[in-house]
């Protein structure tokens, strides 16, 4: 899916670059007149398929840089007659389709020298990468249903991929891919390597995932969407052997811990075994342990099974730590509400919470011993927090006792003063 994004990167800057090269300059020059001829004629056509493209060009990145119809479609925009304008002698190629789309786009987007003038950091290997993708391979074998550049980036009204309106913008990628992959009709006939029909539930599954929530609800554009795991121009399903690598691209520490675990040798689908692929839900401590709702229990249901014992130990360890944090936070909250200064204790509590995150990470090594080490360090921090909290409570009680003693002394002085004043009044 990300390859769509890449293709967009190819198409737009290529066109942009054309404007600056010799070819580009010539094209740009012809564009002024060419556009007028094409647009003037097509705008007056009653067939919407033919009259819509000129209007769609508004805001198109290629058009913005001076490119026009003839740069992709060929022909002569200055000709007054349709026949002359669509003359093959003038290079008219009509509406590119299938492999031709790749060729037309790659003309510029695979030209490093040309692209350098428009977008020096722009990659120029998208077409080559596309050829290695499932889409590219199927296209080469004659399947014209597969996605090409325009499937993901659009044909007219192409926008830069960092434009939120682009179909290849991170928040739009899933819907773009889903346009084909969520359509049972479109995907009919496509199968998995084992011969089963290719599912069309990926989009719906992804939309339930924690990744989708991070991307769309938290506006975290670094959260993964289709292309981040499958690639974009070279889109293909990640192989079973590279699943840990794919997830580990972001979840580095988890992948490192998992690699040391006994499961690394056993799990056929690595991370996916427990977390699923498209429907990666919010992980929780409830996934760990021995009850029937846990992930562990699906394999380790026998009480004598070492995995059963280990998962029980790890869950107990994490629960103990969590309860410790809650209890310490409660204590510090009470002290804070009483107006005592707890800045250092709150910092220590945050440190303990960080240790909980580390403990959950460490759990992916599936070694109760190493988990206990991390939890133990966290519990030491909590012990310090509790000690400080209890000291503050004792200090508070001391202050209040001191206050009552002081108030009693002040009251005595006040009573004495009242008597003295009464005495003076009586005298006068």
């Amino acid at each position, binding site marked *: 899916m990300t390859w769509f994004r890449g293709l967009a990167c190819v198409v737009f800057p290529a066109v942009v670059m054309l404007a600056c090269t010799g070819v580009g300059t010539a094209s740009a020059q012809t564009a002024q007149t060419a556009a007028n001829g094409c647009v003037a004629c097509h705008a007056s056509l009653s067939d919407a398929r033919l009259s819509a493209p000129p209007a769609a060009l508004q805001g198109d990145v290629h058009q913005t840089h001076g490119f026009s119809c003839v740069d992709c479609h060929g022909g002569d925009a200055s000709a007054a007659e349709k026949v002359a304008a669509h003359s093959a002698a003038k290079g008219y190629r009509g509406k590119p389709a299938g492999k031709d789309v790749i060729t037309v786009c790659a003309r510029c987007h695979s030209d490093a020298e040309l692209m350098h003038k428009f977008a020096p950091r722009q990659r120029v290997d998208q077409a080559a990468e596309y050829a290695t993708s499932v889409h590219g391979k199927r296209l080469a074998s004659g399947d014209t249903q597969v996605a090409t550049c325009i499937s993901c980036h659009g044909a007219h009204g192409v926008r830069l991929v960092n434009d939120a309106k682009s179909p290849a913008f991170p928040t739009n990628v899933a819907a773009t891919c889903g346009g084909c992959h969520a359509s049972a009709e479109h995907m009919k006939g496509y199968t998995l390597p084992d011969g089963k029909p290719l599912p069309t539930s990926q989009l719906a599954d992804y939309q339930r995932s924690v990744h989708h929530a991070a991307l769309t609800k938290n506006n975290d554009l670094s959260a993964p969407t289709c292309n981040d795991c499958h690639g974009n121009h070279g889109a293909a399903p990640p192989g079973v052997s590279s699943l840990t690598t794919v997830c580990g691209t972001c979840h580095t520490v988890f992948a490192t811990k998992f690699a040391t675990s006994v499961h690394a040798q056993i799990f056929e689908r690595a991370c996916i075994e427990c977390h699923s692929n498209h429907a990666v839900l919010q992980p929780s401590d409830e996934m760990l342990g021995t009850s029937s709702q846990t992930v562990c229990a699906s394999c380790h249901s026998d009480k004598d099974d070492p995995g059963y014992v280990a998962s029980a130990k790890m869950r107990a360890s994490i629960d103990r730590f969590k309860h410790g944090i809650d209890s310490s936070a409660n204590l510090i909250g009470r002290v804070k509400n*009483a107006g005592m*200064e707890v800045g250092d204790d709150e910092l220590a509590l945050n440190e303990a919470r960080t240790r909980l995150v580390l403990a959950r990470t460490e759990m992916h090594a599936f070694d109760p011993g190493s988990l206990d080490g991390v939890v133990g360090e966290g519990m030491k921090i909590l012990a310090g927090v509790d000690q400080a909290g209890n000291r503050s409570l004792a200090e508070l009680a001391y202050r209040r006792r001191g206050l009552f003693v002081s*108030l009693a002394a*002040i009251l005595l*002085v*006040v009573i004495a*003063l009242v008597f003295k*004043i009464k005495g003076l009044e009586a005298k*006068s």
Partner: protein
Amino acid sequence: MALTSRIVEWLDERLNLSDVRHFIQEKGVPIHAQKLWYYLGGVTLFLFMVQVASGILLLLYYRPSSAEAYESVQFIVTQVEFGWLIRNIHSWSANLLILAAFAHMFSVFFLKAYRKPRELTWVSGVFLLFLMLGFGFSGYLLPWNELSFFATKVGTSITGAVPVIGPPLVRFLRGGDDVTGATLSRFYALHVAILPATATILLGLHLLFVQRQGMSVPIKTLRALKPGERLKEMPFFPDYILRDVLVWYIAIATLAALAAFYPWELGRKADAFAAVPAGIRPEWYFLAMFHTLKLLPSHIMGLEGEMLGVLAFGLAAAVLVIVPFLDRRASRGEPSPALTVLGVLALIYMIAFTIIGYMAA
């Protein structure tokens, strides 16, 4: 006693204290129904002395830089023996001081105690109130916590609405374009040197005026006297002083209870890059003004609303200073109900807008 007498005698021989002694022995305080209001000045003075004493103690540990201010206050309240008590008393006393000063001012206003010949006492008192507000504003920033940082940003920016001198005044107050460590240094200098020095001089003058002229008697009480009748008096020393001390004891008990049960929160350290926290508001005594400025439309008759608001408050302050010279009826010993009504309206406005501002924040 013998020792005390010998010391007094020794001093008397050298300094000739007989005049002072005579003044104290002869000084009387009028007794009337409103005499309770006259203790407010003494309470204000007492709280000012508490501020000076607790402030000096805080100075022993406070470090006035953006890098250390917060930590030093944190150190005072957590590590220094009874530091928490000193800091809490300083914070609470500051608020009670301003409350007492306002109450004192309004009592003097409603009893028309500013009338001739006490105009200068009133003027010095009003300037002292302004100084107390200045103490509050400058002291609020010193702990360098999030709330005070952003409140000072808002507070100083309001100064910018003053025509012509506003923008340079803001830069002068802040020591730059924004609230930074330079602002903290300035506010510190203002809080512990400039304002105390000015306040000491003004307070000395204010007390001198009070002692020279004695306590005022309400017009109503004077008019109720029969011809030839004299108002009863009590000796200033020890009768009145003992009553003052009694009130001071009650004040110190209140302060201690507030410090022990409602310690002043320190909050988080100021971070210029952090998002503005919710509920930013100035201290309660600026809340009425702050909320009024917030409610003003952006433009009134083509002029900036905030600028007009600031000018109006400046005008109100100026009118407050010259009240004794405006109230000609009171200076002739006649009631002046129009000014009383104005004062009541001002008081209602201040209380109402403070409450509304507090709830809105």
